[in-house]
């Protein structure tokens, strides 16, 4: 059934990139249609909050539909943390993951990041971290001779700086240029003269202050180690009709009060222009092309029933003058690969054969420790500061750099506290190693206690108030063999659309970054006189476990998925140009973090939002008027 309405722009995906482009074009008077796979954005977040409160496992996906972990039957399934726990089972895991290497070599690893397929996209459970790239991040080949010439971004930093200003205004980033100033000397971060962030900075936590004081004078890898307040997309005063942050310590999975920016904010702005229409429950399954290679439609399945997706579902076509794929980096690549035809046997926009390849993430080395005295975590936003000074340096010619995110949520991420320590102290077990306090490598002769009454409250207080953790976000090398692909006759979603298969592993550049991260982590805890508890030796059956140079590691995904439709000036080696316009199809733009040629170390949302403004301008000039 063809839809006879014709739009100036058809956008697939109602996340931050699609939202920005829709808003920019809608307010310029263009007619915009957005297709989104998920159900309508709820009128308030009460239902999502209830889902969160009642979930036994408070994973990032917990608030969002579909709640069941049944990717084969849902119309909008996605990778989840619970699904990752069953990564070998396609009935539970949306991604079709490689089977692990029996020797625990760092290959055939499960891709470990998750995303959402609802209006507002994954910004529902983003942390809000809004770091800028630094100049060397754009020029990894020119600067460090790594990853081949096509790994340079086809963009100049001065242009990106201007775009960052727009993105920071859209998100409402809280930070201070003065507080960021030490990073100019450390990693080359500069701002245009006179620039200031839209909101004042977030006050540091007691955890932050303790690290700032304790790290004074410390050096690693020939660089000074110091904490920097993180620019973040959360309100520090009422802004944009949303309240100031109340420190719910719950940015992931969900901010209860919308003090944290999410893309529904931008989506509402877009819809309020009166020129933007959205169709929810509309899953794109093929990009259609005409004889000249122009895109002439998006074929999608409009579903009605989340439990029985095919019941009442219809196949439709959305038609416009131009098309923007603004789904998740994984879903954009999936859709392009699914759009194979006789004219385009590798799929749409894929003459380079780069679609789906160079799949990267920030892979996390996670460490945790007990401070000598109370630092009172489980308070404030989940993270308010980080060590940014190690994000760039000559070592990047040899191994991955990293930023260090300092957590405010104790050992919630590392071991699942407060639940684990609580159960240990009541049951007389010691999964936490805090009953009794037994760091890795230490053999305790004291038995685990079983506590109740005031002794339980006191012991928990002692353990929980001293917990700290650091997450090292490592850049990953672009590798052609790390990719998503579509297998013939593989498992599908509930609408019969094939799901992404993964091929994934780490090279030496990335692995040597893990070794450096472990070294830095232990040195920092020593400097702070903290007792370190990081230990992966008994995580052999967990997703992400691997061994390197005789050491046990486990990595986590940061949800920063990039590279699957990378930008470049060489059309043989890249999918889109600097405006995220397809090299192959003149009326197609493919946007989001999938366009990044390299992952660098900052969380990607701010940069992909900045690039969306560039795309919107490019589209507008193409459409004219």
């Amino acid at each position, binding site marked *: 059934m063809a839809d006879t309405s014709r739009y100036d722009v058809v956008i697939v995906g109602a996340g931050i990139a699609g939202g920005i482009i829709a808003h920019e074009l809608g307010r310029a008077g263009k007619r915009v249609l957005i297709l989104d796979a998920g159900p309508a954005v709820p009128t308030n977040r009460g239902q999502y*909050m*209830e889902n*969160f*409160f*009642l*979930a*036994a*496992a*408070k994973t990032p996906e917990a608030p969002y539909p579909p709640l069941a972990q049944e990717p084969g039957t849902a119309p909008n399934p996605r990778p989840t943390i619970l699904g990752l726990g069953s990564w070998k089972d396609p009935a539970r895991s949306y991604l079709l993951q490689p089977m692990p290497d029996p020797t625990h070599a760092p290959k055939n690893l499960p891709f470990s990041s998750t995303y959402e397929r609802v209006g507002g996209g994954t910004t529902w459970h983003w942390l809000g971290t809004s770091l800028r790239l630094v100049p060397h991040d754009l020029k990894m080949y020119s600067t460090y001779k790594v990853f081949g010439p096509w790994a340079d971004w086809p963009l100049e930093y001065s242009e990106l700086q201007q775009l960052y200003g727009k993105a920071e205004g859209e998100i409402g980033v809280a930070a201070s240029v003065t507080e960021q100033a030490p990073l100019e000397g450390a990693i080359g971060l500069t701002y245009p003269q006179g620039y200031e962030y839209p909101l004042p900075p977030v*006050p*540091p*936590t*007691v955890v932050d202050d303790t690290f700032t004081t304790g790290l004074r004078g410390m050096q690693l890898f020939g660089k000074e180690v110091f904490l920097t307040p993180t620019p973040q997309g959360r309100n*520090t*005063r009422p802004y944009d009709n949303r309240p*100031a*942050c*109340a*420190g*719910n*310590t*719950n940015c992931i999975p*969900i901010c*209860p009060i919308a003090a944290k920016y999410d893309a529904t904010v931008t989506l509402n702005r877009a819809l309020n222009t009166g020129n933007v229409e959205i169709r929810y429950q509309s899953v794109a399954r093929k990009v259609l092309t005409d004889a000249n290679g122009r895109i002439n439609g998006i074929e999608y399945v409009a579903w009605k029933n989340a439990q029985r997706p095919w019941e009442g579902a219809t196949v439709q076509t959305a038609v416009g003058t131009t098309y923007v794929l603004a789904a998740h980096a994984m879903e954009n690549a999936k859709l392009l690969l699914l759009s194979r035809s006789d004219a385009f046997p590798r799929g749409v926009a894929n003459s380079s054969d780069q679609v789906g390849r160079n799949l990267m993430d920030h892979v996390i080395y996670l460490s945790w420790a007990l401070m000598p005295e*109370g630092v*009172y*975590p*489980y*308070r*404030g*936003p989940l993270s*308010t500061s980080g060590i940014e000074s190690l994000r760039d340096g000559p070592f990047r010619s040899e191994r991955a750099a990293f930023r260090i995110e300092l957590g*405010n*949520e104790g050992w*919630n991420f590392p071991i*699942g506290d*407060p*639940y*684990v320590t*609580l*159960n240990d102290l*009541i*049951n*007389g*077990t010691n*999964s936490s190693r805090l009953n009794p306090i037994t760091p890795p490598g230490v053999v305790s002769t004291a038995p685990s*206690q*079983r*506590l*109740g*009454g*005031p*002794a*339980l*409250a*006191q012991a*928990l*207080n002692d353990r*929980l*108030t001293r917990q700290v953790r650091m997450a090292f976000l490592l850049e990953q090398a672009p590798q052609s063999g790390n990719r998503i692909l579509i297998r013939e006759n593989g498992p599908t979603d509930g609408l019969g659309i094939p799901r992404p298969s993964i091929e994934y592993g780490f090279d030496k550049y990335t692995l040597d970054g893990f070794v450096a991260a472990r070294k830095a982590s232990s040195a920092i805890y020593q400097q702070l006189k903290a007792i370190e508890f990081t230990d992966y030796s008994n995580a052999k059956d967990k997703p992400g476990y691997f061994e390197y140079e005789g050491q046990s590691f486990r990595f986590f995904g940061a949800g920063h998925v990039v590279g699957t439709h990378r930008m470049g000036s060489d059309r043989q080696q890249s999918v889109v140009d600097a405006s995220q316009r397809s090299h192959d199809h003149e009326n197609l733009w493919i946007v989001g973090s999938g366009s990044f040629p390299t992952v660098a170390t900052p969380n990607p949302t701010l940069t992909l939002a900045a690039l969306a403004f560039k795309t919107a301008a490019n589209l507008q000039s193409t459409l004219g008027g």
Partner: protein
Amino acid sequence: MIAPASSDPNRVQDFLDMSAVLTGFQASTLAPGLDPNNLKSLFLATADSRAGSALVDQLLQQFRALKGTVTDQQLADSLLGVSENPVPSTALLARSIVKLWYVGSWYPLDSQSENDGQVISMLAYTGGLVWKTAQAHPMGYSELKFGYWAKPPPALSEFGTRSEAASQEASHG
């Protein structure tokens, strides 16, 4: 799932007093004078329906028999069977009641894992005591104001715990 509230006021009061001893928190923290959330009745009904009211009554009977004869810490230790092997079923029930108050989830009596809990209700989660032991607030439920995190929190006792001295006084007084 919300279990029906238990109706016998004396039994509810004993359950509350026992819960205070088991958790190390004051009864007035568990059940403030004006108590619209009424977790005490919800949790008693939960224990009755999940573990059987006969076992709950057995535990309450142990509590009544020992109350006032030992310190509250000793009473908690006795009810929880902290040095008994194997752990009696009343003590396993006492553990599940402590966990219910601490995180708002029911754990089966034989649970040895943090993954076995089932959240009873939104209010059960947001009323969890474990967050108070961290001198914090439930993740996702802050009633505090912007910037509170820049300073250390009030002392633990401000969160409604019973000190050993205070609990002795309460049990003998």
